[in-house]
Structures are given as structure tokens and as C-alpha cells.
């Protein structure tokens, strides 16, 4: 009995502070947002105008939100089929033991990740600038007379142009995670494979990649969650416009909720994003843990 209570005290002592912080800064705000989402409220004065699930109805009927959701999915898919494979490819090359310029390339590819999102956005805005940008200069030099595309000013190209910046920025981060994962794979395994007569390709496919799987799953997880939450880069590169062509769920929430003083509506967006991310994380973690034999 005495033992049990002292154990409880220890648990309370160790978990208590984190639990209190988590409750105050995560659990309560989530429920608060859920509460706000049921009202029409501009953030000023008392909360009185109860609208039930009307905010959610408006949200799901709004074409701009559909566009934002679609864009998020596009960013997820592009990240998975371009960013991660690119990072993996670079990691496999740079992570090789005998690669001479490993440190140089690692630093080089990792550099964009060190820049803040806003700086990245501004940098690429300069590159794409229709009057003074690098793209314009490129066209003027190699294809004089041909009009340079105005990538950020065209609803059809803006998302693609932003995707280039996003991949440029984040691929180095994923590459670094994967290199760290590769370094965990012991050299003996490779040597054993070599002695057994496995070719380079076979070793990579059959031995390295399966062993890298847990790291890869983490990288993919970060990539997907990051894609759902992407905000700063897009905001800095034209606020999700023209005509909401590059809107994501978070820019949508900020623009239509915070900027326009529709706190109730913005909360409904926030709750929706939260549910999407939560569902995905729970599902994804369960799947990965299961496939790694870590669950019962």
C-alpha cells in the first residue's frame, strides 16, 4: 500500500508538470475552439450568437475550402512522389562511406532548411518576379523575345511554383533524417552482403532499404503532417492567391477566420484541420507500429 502511494507520488511528480502544460496549452484550447466553432462570433464582445453546426455547413459548402483541401492533398502527393524519393536518392549517394564530398553536399542541401519559411518565400518570390526575377533573366538570356512566364501571377502555375520552393526547402531535412538512419545500419551487414556476392543494387534494394524502413516511415510522417500544416511559405509567396489558387487549409483558416474577424468560422476550420491530422496520425502510427510488430 505504502509502496503504491509512493509510486503514485513519483508519477505525479514526473508527469505532473508536462500534463498541466499539455492540458492548458493543448487540450483546453482544442475544446475551446470546438466551443467557438458553434457560434457566429467576431472575437469582440460576448459570445451569444449560437449557430449549431452552421459554420461547418458553410465550410463544407465553400468552393474555396474544397480548393484548399485539394491543394493540401496535391502537396502531400507531390511530396511523397518527388520530395521523399529525391531525399532518399541523395541520402543513398551522400551517405556512402567512400563519398568524398559528403560534408559539402550535406551542408549544401541542408542549407535551405535552415532558412526561415518567410525568407524562403521571399527568396523565391524574387526568383519568380515578372520584372526583375531570375526566371525573367533566364528567358531574356536563352530565349530572347519569348515572354517569361509569370508563375506566381497565374492561377494555373502558382501552386506548382510554390511546390518547387517547398521541395527545395524541405528535401534537405528529409535527406538528413535518412542519412542518420543509414548511419545506424552497421557496416558488417553491408560487408556480409558483399562477401555473399550481392551487387550494389541488390544490397540497396534488399538490405539497406528494408533496414531503413523505420526512418523512412518517420520521414514520410513528417512530410505528410507538414504538408497539411504548410502556411508560411505560401503566405509569403502571395497569400494563397491569385484567386485562392494556392490556398491551403491553414491559409484559409487564417484569411477567412482571423483576418476577417470570423473567429467562430475560423474555429470550425481549425477543428476540421485538427480532426484530419488526428485521424491521420492515429491511423498511420497504428499501421506503422503494426507492420513493425510493435503492437500486440
Amino acid at each position: 500500500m505504502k509502496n503504491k502511494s509512493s509510486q503514485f507520488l513519483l508519477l505525479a511528480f514526473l508527469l505532473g508538470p508536462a500534463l498541466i502544460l499539455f492540458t492548458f496549452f493543448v487540450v483546453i484550447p482544442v475544446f475551446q475552439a470546438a466551443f467557438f466553432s458553434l457560434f457566429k462570433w467576431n472575437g469582440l464582445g460576448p459570445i451569444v450568437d449560437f449557430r449549431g453546426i452552421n459554420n461547418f455547413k458553410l465550410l463544407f459548402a465553400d468552393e474555396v475550402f474544397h480548393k484548399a483541401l485539394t491543394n493540401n492533398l496535391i502537396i502531400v502527393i507531390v511530396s511523397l512522389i518527388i520530395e521523399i524519393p529525391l531525399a532518399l536518392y541523395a541520402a543513398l549517394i551522400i551517405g556512402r562511406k567512400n563519398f568524398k564530398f559528403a560534408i559539402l553536399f550535406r551542408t549544401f542541401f541542408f542549407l535551405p532548411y535552415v532558412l526561415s519559411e518567410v525568407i524562403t518565400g521571399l527568396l523565391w518570390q524574387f526568383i519568380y518576379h515578372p520584372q526583375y526575377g531570375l526566371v525573367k533573366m533566364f528567358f531574356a538570356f536563352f530565349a530572347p523575345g519569348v515572354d517569361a512566364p509569370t508563375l506566381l501571377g497565374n492561377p494555373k502555375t502558382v501552386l506548382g511554383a510554390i511546390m518547387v520552393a517547398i521541395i527545395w526547402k524541405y528535401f534537405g531535412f528529409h535527406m538528413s533524417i535518412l542519412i542518420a538512419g543509414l548511419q545506424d545500419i552497421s557496416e558488417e551487414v553491408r560487408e556480409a552482403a558483399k562477401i555473399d556476392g550481392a551487387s550494389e543494387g541488390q544490397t540497396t534494394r534488399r538490405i539497406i532499404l528494408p533496414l531503413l524502413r523505420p526512418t523512412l516511415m518517420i520521414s514520410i510522417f513528417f512530410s505528410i503532417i507538414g504538408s497539411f500544416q504548410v502556411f508560411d511559405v505560401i503566405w509569403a509567396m502571395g497569400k494563397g492567391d491569385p484567386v485562392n489558387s494556392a490556398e491551403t487549409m491553414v491559409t484559409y483558416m487564417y484569411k477567412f477566420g482571423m483576418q476577417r474577424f470570423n473567429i467562430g468560422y475560423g474555429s470550425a476550420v481549425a477543428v476540421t484541420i485538427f480532426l484530419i491530422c488526428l485521424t491521420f496520425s492515429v491511423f498511420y502510427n497504428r499501421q506503422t507500429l503494426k507492420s513493425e510488430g510493435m503492437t500486440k
Partner: protein
Amino acid sequence: MNLRKIGFVIVLAILTLASCKNPANKPVTVNFWHIGTAATDKAYYQGVVDAYTKLHPNVTIQLTILENEAFKSKLATVMQSGTPPDVFHSWGGGMLAEYAKAGLLRDITKFTKDTDWGKSMAAGVWNVYAYDGKQYGAPFDMGAITFWYNKDILAKVGYTAFPTDFDDLVVLVGKLKAAGIVPIALGGGDKWPAMHMWTYIAERIGGKEVLQNAVQGKGNGFNDPAFIKAGDILVQLVKAGAFQDGFLGATYNDEAALVGNGKAAMELMGQWAPNVEKDSSVSKTGIGAALSAAPFPSIKDGLGKVTDVVGGGNGMAIGKNAPDAAVDFLKFLTNQENNAAYAAAAGIIPTVKGAETGIKDDNAKLVKGIVDKTEFFQLYLDQFLAPAPAGAVNDNVQAILAGTKSPTDACKAIQAAVDSNK
């Protein structure tokens, strides 16, 4: 300490408190937030604050100086927590009305109605800082959106004066385009510059009633044919190549840089345009004396007059907990002398009668000339409307320019946003 001494102290304390009843001597603190981050503005405000506290030694003015965007987000936070500053920067209109509705502002009507202060400015100018017949603040700068054009470029294509008729402007656009010059610089990515153009065209077609009906939710509202026609005209301008390449992604600063560097012939912008053009230009001096201003041209068979103006400016609002000293300070800030001093220092368009003597800058004089002739004054639509419908106006004008929405659908969407905000 014996009882007698304690009694003495109490009596003394009561006497001291009693002497404080006189409000003129009671120490009072006024929280004052302004957004004049430029060196000239900062010095001006500091000067006014120093002068006021010298006259009223019991008043302490606590200054908070914030950059435009930082100000907006910080103000939103303190407003949502119900603790507004005593005197703070405001653009009036719809946002001021939202604050007033939520009871966050102090009604200062008794200080302005039929008083000398009230009479020092035109009623229409005061109205920008009023809601539901009550006064919540005071303007100090009120200008107009006009065409700012490059006289030298216009002369090159044979124009010695700015067109007064819209059809003539379209002809001018064609000539400039043919000469390889960007006719009109437009920061379409920021949306509001395009919104002003759409507002003006609609007003020139339908007249002031159409605008008044729309903002008051009467008649056809934003579904009025004038607004739809204005959209059609914008589409025609895009087709004619009136705006620079990539204008849909351009910011307002891009727009100012095009004019400031002499790459574009004109822009439609407010009284701050010359300064921003200078700052955004490579030379930092803009196009100098080649710059001139002209009112938005009239449209054939349209009901709007050239003297009808879309404009706006800057002022101060009074928070709900503000002491009388805060109101008195605002009155001091907007007296003729200080208003003129600000005009001289920072090129604002003064609101106080007689303060125009302070205007030193030729460009500011041009704007003042246009403002003085105003018969109908409409505050910027995105400032006049509440934030949500204002955002819808900006979004939908951009959609018209991008060709993703027909003018009819865009106007419907705007009206829907106005209706759902009621």
C-alpha cells in the same frame, strides 16, 4: 506611533485626496498607440506629446509605436481581450463600427457635437469615425484615390493632359501599349488596388446612389448592373493589356516601383503614392516633377460625377476606458496648428479647416485640390464594409481580373457575403 499621530496622518491623507478631486490636477495616464514608424512621423508625434504634457503636467502619455501590420494584429488581440488603448490609430469605417458595436469604444459625441472642435472639420470627414450617429474618434488625414501619372510618358504619346473621359483613357492605354510602355501599374496580388478601380468605374456608371445602396444593403445592392458593368470593363482592360505582365501576383510595392522607375505610365492610388513611389524606386527619388494627379475620368452616359471621390485616410479612435484627458489629447492632436505641422512634416492631407497652409508638397496640394472639390465622398469600400464582406469584395474583384468568375457571379458572391454578415 501613538493614536494622535495616526489620526493626524489620516486627516492629512483625506485632505490630500480631497484636493485631488479637481480633475485638472489628478494624475492620469493615457495610453496612445500610433503607427508613425517613419522618422518624421515619430518626431511629429513625440513633439505633440511633449507639448501636451507640458501644458498638462498631470497627464502622462504612454506611447506605443507599432508598424502597420504588427499594429493590426496586436490591436486585434487587445480588442478581443476587451482592453483597448485609450487613443489609437484607426482607419474608421467598418472596423471601427465592429468595435463600437462590441462596446469597445467611448462615445465622444458630447465633445464634438456643435462644439468648436466639431466645427473645425467637415461633417463628411467626421462621419468616417462615427457609427450609428455617435462619434468614436477623429480623423487627421483624409485624401482621395486618384490617377497618378507620368507627364513625360503621356507627352510621348501625344497627351498633354490626363483624359477626362474614360473612352479617351482607353485610347491612351492602347497608345501606351503600342509604344511598349506599361499603361497602368496594378498590384493585383494585394487585391485592394484593383478594388478601388472597380469601385470607381461602378460609381462613374451608376452614380453615388448605387454605391450608397450597396453599402447600406438597399436596392439591388452589389447586384446592380453598374457593378456588373464595372467588372466587364475591367475584363476589357485586361484583354487590352492595360496592366503589366503578372499583375495578378504583383504587390502594391511592385506597382509603386513600376511608376517610380518610369516603367509604367500611371497607377490609381491614394495620397501616399508619391512617397511610396520614391521609396520603391531605384533612384529613391521617383519620377520627380513628372508626376501629377488627376481625378478618375467620367464615363459616357454615366451618372457619377468627376467630383465624386473614393478616398480615406487616417485618424484616431478612443477606447472604452479612456479618461477625459485622452479625448482632450486627441482634440489637441487635431487642432489647426498640429494638423498643419503634420501636413508639413509628412505630407498628409489635413482635415482641419485652415490647416492646408501646412501643405508644402506639390503632390499633396494636387490631392487637396481634388478633395476640396468633392461633392460625394465614399470611404474605401474595403474599409467601409465590415471585414468579412470587405474581404469578399477584394477576392471577387481579383477573380474577375483573373477570369475565373464572371462579373455577374462575382457580384452575386459579394452580395451573399454582405447578406450573411448581417
